[in-house]
């Protein structure tokens, strides 16, 4: 893999994060493949998204409902602006998985402003990327918090 390829992958991850920071869930969702999934596990080292609870495990169905809910004028929890700032680092290419998807991991720090409080999230992300005409699409995004078991406050948007 050339330096240009690595640069393109990094740029794609930054672009994805910036759509969450905007927030622009419509364009963010469009980055996922039709069978794409987003996973926020509820425990460290979780291996199973279906037989163990998660904070979020969304396919495109749930992403679509979440997106429509997010912009609905009558959702009281969304009356407050949600602003986030993603900082990605330690980006590493992990090779291809059995499905042939490119596995990329990174560390993230997210500062989030919601309900007049500033909150911090930190952890690691794993992206499974598929090459597409327009660059990449996401088959799977996994977000492992450093404190997935802690009592969480309301999380209004994807990390």
């Amino acid at each position: 893999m050339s330096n240009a390829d690595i640069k393109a992958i990094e740029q794609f991850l930054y672009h994805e994060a910036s759509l969450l920071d905007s927030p622009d869930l419509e364009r963010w969702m469009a980055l996922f493949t039709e069978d794409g999934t987003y996973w926020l596990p509820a425990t460290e080292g979780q291996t199973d998204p279906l037989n163990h609870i998660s904070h979020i495990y969304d396919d495109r169905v749930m992403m679509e409902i979440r997106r429509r809910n997010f912009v609905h004028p009558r959702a009281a929890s969304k009356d407050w602006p949600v602003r986030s700032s993603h900082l990605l680092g330690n980006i590493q290419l992990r090779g291809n998985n059995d499905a042939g998807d490119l596995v990329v991991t990174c560390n993230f720090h997210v500062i989030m402003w919601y309900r007049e409080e500033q909150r911090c999230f930190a952890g690691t992300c794993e992206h499974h990327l598929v090459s597409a005409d327009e660059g990449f699409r996401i088959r799977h995004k996994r977000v492992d918090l450093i404190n997935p078991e802690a009592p969480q406050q309301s999380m209004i948007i994807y990390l």
Partner: protein
Amino acid sequence: MTTIISTEEIAGLVQPTRLHKRLYLDPEVFELEMQRIWGQAWIFIGHESQVPKPGDYFTTNITHKIPVVMVRDKSGSVHVLHNRCGHKGAKLVESRQGNVRGAFRCPYHGWSFRHDGSLLKVPNEGGYDGTGFDSSDPCYSMQSVAQAESYRGFVFATLSAAAPDLKTWLGGAVDCLDNLCDRAPEGEVEVAGGVLRYEHQCNWKFILENLNDTMHPMVVHQSVVQAAEDYIASLPATAVKQRSEAEIIPPFGSSYEKFEDSGITGFPYGHHYDGGKTSIHADYSVLPAYHEAMVKAYGEERTREIYSFNTHNTLYYPSLTIKTAVQNIRVVRPIAVDRFVVETWSFRLKGAPEEMLQRTLLYSRLINSSAGMVGPDDLEVYRRAQEGLQSSASEWVEFHRQYGRDQQLEDRVVGGGTSDLDMRTQYKAWREYMTGEAFQ
């Protein structure tokens, strides 16, 4: 903590159709609640399936502060002990769960205790010879809580020796625990798939008031219901999988009429449920393989009977609320007057296909998760109330709906599904616990 609030003053805070705002705002009222409600009622500790083997333990707090540990001994009995060394008082175990092998061992001076809490060994014990120290005095053991009992695997404990036995305390509301277990082809459930913990920055009573508050879903959850309905309407007829996944949400927008028909039933000690003959969970489709396993275990008629007892939320006041048709529970753990944590646990129906657990977990994720699409809107309105009640505009919160229309039966009170019968039921218990009348 000594208190300056008199019993008369406490009794005056709860009137037949209104509550004083101090119930939500006053730290002294909260401390009294911890002593008199959480310190007397049967509190849900955990499920026996969380401690399957000898030495397995699970820790929690029975009130906002008092640490306890549920542990299984070598004979298979489950104990609920104070998580406190009989020596200097250090907590014996700190993890949320684990296994202590042969005995609890204090990390401070190495005192050890059997699984039933009795003192096993004091290191270098010669130093106590002739000092008057009596190692058989229970005060030097890990003491048991006043009473602990299990009902179909659900372990409750109370710090009150005066509390009636668990079955008596559960009363007619026990039907819902039975129905949850009966929905398993083998008649037993077990905790599965981990826990979600959701921090709520408001008074603990808001969530209990919300459980059977059937006037809120069509307002608070309107956005997600419309989002789901619009999405479902946009699907082609062939999108069966997408439709079945999305169908969990629309019942939250059920009409006033539908909720009214489901009814509310109240019991002594503050328990209540909405639903019975029907509930907003009644229209969820039944997985064919599950139905087959049920009919094989129970026969067609009994299976229908089990399905037909369809409740929405059941409250075992004040700590446990269960969803029988969904097989998850929420456990309330108060922390301060304006803070508590809700734990969501899911259950596997023994003998049912694994897809049933997956559906339960899907429900917990979408509805009960802090990142769900229902819970955050509920919490938002509780927080608005917590903040709005600081206003000097009024001292009182009202609950008049269908007052005077409740029907008293032998062991229960029944009323309309959109009534405030649930409020009347839980605040009657609040008043009885707080004024010392509950177990007289």
